[in-house]
């Protein structure tokens, strides 16, 4: 019944594993969803081979936005930036393991949007990054 809020989401929301801010960092980006006040910042360190060696997120907002950020950050450590650029909406939804309507999708995708905007070095996080 509460499958929409799989235990992992509540768990990651309450006990995030990758919450924090890296200083120094190689990449950072932040953005928010003004509709509901969700806010996500990511900071990354990248090694000589162009792989994510360390990563953290910080922010506030609903369980979906925060848990998806935590799961996303976990999943990219060790990946190359090229691999991160290729990540899709579906990859993130697979991490979450739940289905989401259009409104909540925005919450879930905020972290991916922020991450990709940072990795691409864009000035602005556009919805098209996660379509």
């Amino acid at each position, binding site marked *: 019944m509460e*499958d*929409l809020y799989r235990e992992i989401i509540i768990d990651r*929301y*309450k006990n995030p594993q990758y919450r924090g801010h890296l200083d120094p960092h190689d990449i950072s980006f932040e953005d928010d969803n*003004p*509709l*509901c006040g969700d806010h996500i910042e990511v900071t990354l360190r990248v090694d000589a081979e162009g792989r994510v060696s360390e990563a953290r997120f910080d922010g506030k907002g609903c*369980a979906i936005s925060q848990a998806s950020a935590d799961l996303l950050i976990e999943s990219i450590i060790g990946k190359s930036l090229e691999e991160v650029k290729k990540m899709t909406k579906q990859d993130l939804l697979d991490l979450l393991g739940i289905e989401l309507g259009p*409104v909540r999708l925005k919450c879930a995708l905020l972290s991916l949007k922020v991450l990709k905007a940072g990795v691409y070095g864009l000035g602005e996080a556009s919805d098209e990054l996660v379509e």
Partner: protein
Amino acid sequence: MTLDTLRIRQDFPIFERQVRPGVPLVYLDSTATTQKPQSVLRAMDEFYRRSNANIHRGVHTLAEEATALYEAARQKVAAFIHAADARQVIFTRNASEAINLAAYAWGRAHLKAGDLILLTEMEHHSNLVPWQMLAAATGASLDFVPVTDDGLLDLDAYRSLLTRQPRLVAFTHMSNVLGTINPAAEMIRLAHAAGARTLVDAAQSVPHLPVDVQALDADFLAFSAHKMLGPTGIGVLYGKRDLLESMPPFLGGGDMIKTVHLRDFVPNELPHKFEAGTPAIAEAVGFGAAVDYLSALGMDAVAAHEREIIAYALERLEEIRGVRVFGPPAEQRGGVASFTLEGVHPHDVAQILDTFGIAVRAGHHCAQPLHEKFGIPATTRASFYVYSTKEEVDQLVEGLYRVKKIFG
């Protein structure tokens, strides 16, 4: 309860629906849009099956029937708000378009740089953005009646803002977030004494309270059918006759003209002058049926029913630790309760409630400045109407306890 909700609910086919197998619908989102009774759906269906035709210019039977039905709906709506004359009822798409109509046609003709438009901090975006656009276009300036911590308008501040001689005061009759019922008649009296015109955003009041535009002495008043048992696609701008007469047209096209030559036109008489092109004919017919339904219940009874429900809801919500309800006590509000639950984002509250079939809204409810004022990005909102029951309030409360447990 004042209304026989058991009988009423049988008129609404959607309550037969289960949100998911075994999970009945608990619809607590009537402030966003209401459900529709059988009689409204039947009136529209019947229109399309029997009398569908374009109106006003047709000589054939169907066109005459359609015209008569459309204009009869206007009469019903006019009577419902106690307009002196049905020609003062302009059909628009929704309350938002109605306000824009006033802002474009009256505002651009009458306001100039330096003129003041007075709004309030509790306005819906639809009663903010059109005036921001008008101010940007004309150089008029905006000011705002503040909202107190209790969710009331600060009427002392209002009086002192009026000394700055605004040209227009535009305010909501009932807040869609706080539920606050503003003292519209008194506010209009003060505005008129200060030489201002008034526009009442009645999107939440006409559906929920007896509204008499003549007793209010409102210059303009806007509302939507879909929030009062009627269909989407139709709303109303009511206006005083002399004002509407003096305004230039807004949208140009078929039906709003008396004569057209290649290079000029003569506008039609009221109300047609402001209804360009084929209007929402079937929707007007449905709107008329909605007004009939509400009139049969009686708007005093509707308001009393909502007062009972909201009093009970406030009482029950306040017993939940961590719940903070915004807005005034039950006596000063309609059937809306917006709240936060400590430690849980409103989106999560709404989504978990949805798994129990409970439909509430989460967000800023198109009143972002009001939420900024209270220092929160979003609230969860439960809202009630003629078909709402105390059992549904209990289900909401039980749902909130379960949300707390999940996040506990």
